């Protein structure tokens, strides 16, 4: 029996390995020219030191998976059990949706700035981050802030602008966001926050309040769009990714289909029964392995069993600061439990009487104790 995996990222790799390990024939269709590689260094160590995709490849446990790289799935028929790459038709018994997300662009006039998602994006950006270059980062989420920190370390002049009032405010809350902003400012980054971009220019941007910012390089890091277009026409729920159940089986179809990684929207009973899409690096591995089991069961005519309660985990390196997060801080209210907002600290995120997330700044080891309390209700 043949399984097709669409998307040759981390989630696709883990699902492919799980299914190959169960004896299925596995073909992976991926639009990037590269075998799966690790993305987080693209805004951190690699962007600083030089991007070499060879050094970022994941180790692979099977040499008999059929990799079709540089080929984008353009369509899919679940009724016919086939994926299309332009005119070519690839039949399957089981399907893994692993096509991830792409960076969003702001719907404003002017030339579209570059973004950072792939190794090729990082290579192009790296070439332009020479000492003295004026960089304008649009978006103050994790990727925007990491690029800002790396660019400062490369000797660029850096300005960050965002609609949000503080950097990383949604995942971290206002207090820790403000503290991170102060760290960046101490390293020479300037901020224009709480105002949107009205227009892009070749040499910068105009903000909604009329401020004109000039820069040699602009980079846009304002969130993501799930890569679902190739699934259209199958009556799936594609509002914000692909809706799946707790065991990653895609909802709304009888075909054996699972979704993994950044594109999957599924409930996690560790927290509640609300399906959510979470872009954290550890989840493609967790969902890939679990979805592999689920699809294997379906293809063997068994009912998938179990309870999937992954712990979302995130980290971010900015200057000498190591942030680590467990759970879903974005769903709770921040409470400082150790240290100072402005320095090394541990912050819990509370919803009702439940601790739903924890973030540590330079507190890796202490954080481990807090991890076990999260979402245990």
């Amino acid at each position, binding site marked *: 029996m043949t399984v097709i995996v669409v998307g040759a990222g981390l989630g696709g790799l*883990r699902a492919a390995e799980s299914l190959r390990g169960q004896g299925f024939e596995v073909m992976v269709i991926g639009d990037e020219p590269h075998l799966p590689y*690790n993305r*987080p*260094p693209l805004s951190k160590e690699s962007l600083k030191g030089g991007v070499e995709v060879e050094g*970022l490849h*994941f*180790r692979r*446990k099977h040499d008999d998976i059929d990799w079709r790289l540089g080929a984008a799935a353009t369509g899919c028929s679940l009724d016919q059990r086939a994926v299309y790459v332009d005119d070519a038709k690839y039949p399957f018994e089981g399907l893994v949706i692993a096509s991830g997300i792409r960076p969003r662009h702001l719907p404003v006039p002017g030339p579209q700035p570059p973004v950072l998602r792939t190794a090729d994006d990082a290579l192009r950006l790296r070439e332009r981050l020479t000492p003295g270059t004026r960089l304008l980062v649009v978006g103050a989420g994790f990727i925007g802030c990491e690029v800002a920190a790396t660019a400062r370390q490369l000797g660029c002049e850096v300005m960050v602008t965002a609609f949000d009032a503080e950097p990383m405010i949604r995942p971290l809350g206002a207090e820790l966001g403000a503290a991170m902003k102060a760290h960046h400012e101490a390293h020479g980054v300037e901020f224009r926050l709480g105002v949107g971009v009205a227009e892009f220019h070749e040499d910068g941007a105009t903000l909604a309040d009329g401020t004109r910012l000039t820069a040699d390089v602009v980079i846009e890091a304002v969130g993501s769009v799930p890569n679902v277009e190739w699934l259209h026409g199958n009556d799936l729920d594609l509002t914000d990714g692909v809706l799946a159940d707790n065991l990653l089986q895609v909802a709304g179809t009888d075909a054996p289909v699972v979704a993994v990684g950044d594109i999957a929207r599924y409930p996690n009973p560790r927290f509640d029964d609300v399906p959510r899409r979470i872009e954290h*690096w*550890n989840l493609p*591995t967790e969902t890939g392995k679990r979805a592999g089991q689920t699809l294997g069961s379906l293809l063997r005519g068994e009912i998938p069993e179990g309870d999937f309660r992954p712990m979302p*985990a995130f*980290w971010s*390196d900015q200057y000498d600061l*190591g942030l*680590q997060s467990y759970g879903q801080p974005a769903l709770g209210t921040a409470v400082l439990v150790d240290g100072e907002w402005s320095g090394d600290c541990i912050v819990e995120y509370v919803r009702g009487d439940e601790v739903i997330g924890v973030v540590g700044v330079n507190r*890796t*080891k202490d954080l*481990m104790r807090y991890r076990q309390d999260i979402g245990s209700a």
Partner: protein
Amino acid sequence: MKITVDMDKCQHYGQCTFEAPTVFALNDDGKLEYQGEVDDSLADQVEAAADVCPMQAIEIAP
């Protein structure tokens, strides 16, 4: 099986310690310590640890 962690890559995040707690641990200074050689019965745990390492710093040899 033999385990090597590339200490130039390792950022001491400790993700490996959750998957294979008897093999990997953070010491009092928060630095990673690990066993270089373990029984094959731990293979699944060690594989899982290598998979979850954000820096992909863990290498395994038979």
